[in-house]
């Protein structure tokens, strides 16, 4: 194990595009980086049985999610030559059209950044104990299930 600390990935509510812009601009001092890859998840206004999704309410088993994310982070750093890796996930309500997940990887060359970003997104959707409750415009709800 490395000495990397367990980081908090959770953000209350939506992830602000200004936060994402700020996060990108912070990397301008890291001049060994030659490629960034970014994935952003956005809440979809799905129509289900004639009702539209107004937003998603996210809850998590936070302690377990952060421990699990720490393991994933260690695995990814071991597998790919990355300069850095950032993950942010919403908790609470995120309205349709807003960003709920932000994954950001950087490396000297593009391929590790792109591949690590994709692997991170797949792993965190499958392995982190986070639950999304789709709230409809009439305030009824249903629980999402990742495929």
């Amino acid at each position, binding site marked *: 194990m490395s000495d990397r600390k367990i980081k908090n990935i959770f953000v209350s509510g939506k992830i602000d595009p200004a936060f994402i812009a700020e996060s990108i601009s912070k990397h301008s001092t890291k001049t060994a980086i030659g490629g960034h890859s970014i994935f952003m*998840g956005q809440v979809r206004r799905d129509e289900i049985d004639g009702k539209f999704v107004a937003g998603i309410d*996210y*809850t*998590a*088993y936070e*302690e*377990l*999610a952060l*421990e699990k994310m720490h393991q994933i982070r260690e695995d990814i750093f071991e597998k790919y030559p990355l300069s850095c890796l950032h993950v942010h*996930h919403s908790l609470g309500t995120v309205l349709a059209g807003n960003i*709920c*997940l932000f994954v950001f990887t950087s490396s000297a060359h593009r391929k590790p950044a792109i591949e690590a970003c994709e692997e991170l*997104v797949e792993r*965190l*959707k*499958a*392995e*982190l*104990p*986070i*639950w*999304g*409750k789709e709230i409809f415009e009439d305030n009824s709800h249903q*629980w*999402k*299930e*990742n495929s």
Partner: protein
Amino acid sequence: MELEIISFGKIAEVINNQRIDVSGLSTTDELKAYLEKSFPLLSEMKYKLAVNKNIIQENHDLKNNDIIAIMPPFSGG
């Protein structure tokens, strides 16, 4: 033996967080049978257990004061 039960997502609508006294139980398989009997809706749901923050894939021994999380399929991202 006392256990602390915490539940998440859809299952939190069926089972509240609570401490339970389960003298006759010693494994997670026995606990599952107990929970599904006590909360019949649970037997129709997909779920995994975590014991003290470790997700359990196979039957697992329980001890006093273990924290058991009942977790439906994840849907983050």
